[in-house]
């Protein structure tokens, strides 16, 4: 891992059950979609997170979900404004070239797309999958994309597709094959959706993936 720099938390908010948005001042440039290593203890190797804020924001936002068996997040949850964090340099190539594309995300995998959107980039369509309505983080802002499709597998709400995002995609008889598909989420989601897109005639060269690990 590259050299660590110290920063101070200036905002730490619970935005949904077990999911936080933590912020610290930005003193470097990044390209929306890039990631950064973060830790609150130099004894714990930094964990990688997608940046979840605009490239013009004076703060860097990181969206994280607390994992009970996680190495970092159970203690990160307890950090307060003013506490120190250590960050790496930004890295990663999951960046949007502004060519026509769908963005597809689940869980905190929405973070790079939120960063892209808040930086002025837009997809043709954003498909976001979740089990519960409360897991559509930033929904109120993301609706401004226009073609925004939240897919909820366990709850119903007006304006929300009822079912998994894979079911939503399966319902298309034909998918556009001359555009790109950006996927971000768990390995299982990315692999499932990638296979589904390929099955529907999308060339694998048009599928750009980012997996949490």
């Amino acid at each position: 891992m590259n050299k660590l720099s110290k920063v101070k938390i200036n905002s730490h908010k619970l935005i949904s059950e077990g999911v936080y948005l933590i912020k610290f001042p930005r003193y470097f440039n990044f390209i929306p979609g890039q990631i950064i290593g973060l830790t609150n203890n130099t004894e714990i190797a930094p964990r990688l997170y997608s940046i979840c804020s605009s490239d013009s924001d004076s703060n860097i936002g990181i969206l994280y979900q607390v994992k009970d068996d996680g190495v970092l997040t159970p203690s990160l949850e307890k950090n307060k404004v003013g506490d120190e964090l250590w960050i790496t340099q930004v890295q990663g190539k999951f960046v949007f070239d502004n060519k026509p594309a769908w963005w597809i995300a689940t869980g905190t995998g929405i973070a790079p797309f939120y960063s892209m959107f808040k930086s002025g980039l837009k997809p043709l369509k954003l498909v976001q999958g979740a089990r519960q309505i409360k897991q559509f983080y930033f929904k109120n802002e993301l609706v401004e994309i226009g073609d925004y499709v939240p897919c909820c597998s366990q709850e119903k709400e007006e304006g929300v597709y009822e079912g998994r995002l894979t079911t939503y995609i399966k319902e298309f008889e034909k998918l556009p094959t001359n555009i790109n598909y950006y996927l971000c989420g768990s390995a299982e989601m990315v692999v499932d959706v990638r296979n589904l897109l390929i099955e529907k005639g999308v060339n694998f060269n048009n599928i750009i993936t980012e997996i949490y690990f």
Partner: protein
Amino acid sequence: MELLFGKTLTELTEMVLELKMPKFTAKQIANWLYHKQISSIDEMSNISQKNREILKEHFELGILPYLKVQESIDGTKKYLFKAKTNQFIETAMIPDTERKTVCVSSQVGCKMGCLFCMTGRQGFQANLSAGEIVNQYRSIDEWEKVTNLVYMGMGEPFDNIDEVLKSLDILTSDWGYGLSPKRITVSSIGIIPGLKLFLENSKCHLAISLHTPFDTERKNLMPVEQVYPIQEVINEIKAFDFGLQRRVSFEYIMFKGVNDKPEHVKQLARLLNGVKCRMNLIRFHPIPDSPLLGSSDKTIEEFKEGLNKKGIITTIRSSRGQDIFAACGLLSTKELVKQQEKDY
């Protein structure tokens, strides 16, 4: 209950001191675990009855038999082990004229999502403990005849680096199995923090799954390229002194029309310039609904010649165990994974 098998000597020492046993008991336990064939803590006859009872109160032995074995027409065997509740892993044993190589898994499933790999299709379920990794060597029928060990089964070893390093410690230490590090190869797609720890803390050989020298192509085949580009992985390798004994090799699955062209030979020569290494070309074993096809034997042979001419020692790896899905990239326990609740 916690398992004894899979603990390093350091961990055993901490454990016995905590249990108020003499420090030397740690070496005695290691000797029973890794040098002798026992099936219960009761068999540790040079440890006092009282201490054995204390051990039994806190620990299980942890040497677990395999559940099932399949044998290929070429002699390759595929073993199924139970790792944790409702989680299963596969291990391959590949016999050759003078060698018996065990291919161990380091995770249940895999997070890396490589386009060509069957394991990635099942998603990620769990990291294996050091004991669960070593048990795949210790509990197969041929374990005493094993000559080589490769971490090329299910999972990405550098995504579970702490347990992988502990398992290597157990396999190569005198108090453990005492295997030569030269007989062990750990294969990774190139997670740089794990790579650094591995290079610094082990003497075992390294294999890197390369599959294409071009960044854009590799991103499409292997999502990890977005985060740890192959050029940066090579830079780390170039910066490390491998000495005379330690070896680095690259694995290259040949996909028809994707990564098997003359420009790939040229770019590989550029990328690997200055790296003392070997290249293993691997025939692609198609997985269901894959958009990829394997290159022809002729193309693979020509690719090999091209790389050899550029000074990269290149061999073609024989396909083994394909009929029982034990070949490279085919291990999977997807059918046995308890259906997890999807978040999408």
